[in-house]
């Protein structure tokens, strides 16, 4: 299982980019952290989710 924003999901073996697009994230607005480290957008394709990974996705907003 892979934890995404605290929720366990059956995503082991999946590309991070495939998960993000299946979950309809707008890539230019999000920051992704996996196991405590930033995953830059350039690595979404090569990042394969593994059992036990913990992923946090934060959507940024402009406005002030």
């Amino acid at each position: 299982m892979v934890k995404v924003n605290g929720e366990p999901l059956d995503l082991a073996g999946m590309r991070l980019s495939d998960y993000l697009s299946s979950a309809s994230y707008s890539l230019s607005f999000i920051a992704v952290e996996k196991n405590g480290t930033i995953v830059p957008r350039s690595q979404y394709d090569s990042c394969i989710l593994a059992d036990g990974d913990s992923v946090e996705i934060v959507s940024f907003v402009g406005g002030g």
Partner: protein
Amino acid sequence: MPLSTFQKLRYARHLVLKEIGEKGQEVLLSSKVLVIGAGGLASSAIAHLASAGVGTIGIADGDIVELSNLQRQFLHTFAALHTNKAISAGEFVRARDRDINVHLHPLFVDEHNICDLISGYDFVLDCVDRFETKFLINDACVLMKKPYSHAGAVRFQGQAMTYVPDKGPCLRCLLQTAPNGATCQSVGVLGAAVGVLGSVQALETVKFLLNIGRLLTGRVFYFDGLSFETKVVPFSGRDPDCAVCGEHPRIKDLSENAKEYHAACENVQGDTKQ
């Protein structure tokens, strides 16, 4: 300078906090902070910074007060309609405390003026409305090695983080490029929600100035006032490929990257997923 009798009464509730005390209050009174943008985030941030006795507060904004601002930007009054926001916000600060030095900068920051502007301050607050300007502030602060507080807020939600040179990632480490996205004008915003984020920015400013607690450096605070989903997500370490603070930075001069700071803001993103 030691506190006067008046100041000891004025800041009595700070003096009993072991993290502040007389020494800390003296530090706050001698500190210089620049707030860029005088809207919703800044209303809350400036009110708290001025009340707390931050001795010099710079306010930069080239915009004018409009009727639609008053629903959340409580620094501004009906009487201030159509006047410059920095000047209007400065009047709010002076009404609270005449001892605070207010430096007014009634201008929009751009790639030409921002480095000079921030150079005289200890800490900067990004309280602007557009991502493009948030990235301009980020890049200027990275290049000038200036600590700053980032925040953004629309609808009922927002985020905040604190950049400290060589201590954690910058905004560009996390998002790479300025997204073309939601502003308060396009999707709406509740004053009480944006005020939470502005208050967080004031809190981070005081913590940085006094070197107390644990900053939102290498961490992002996320807040959704509708669901009360609130979290602090660790983003430890910089992105080594970051275009401004990475190992081989592409952005070394703001003028060369000016196009990104002036990107059109018309294709507004209507919804962002949590």
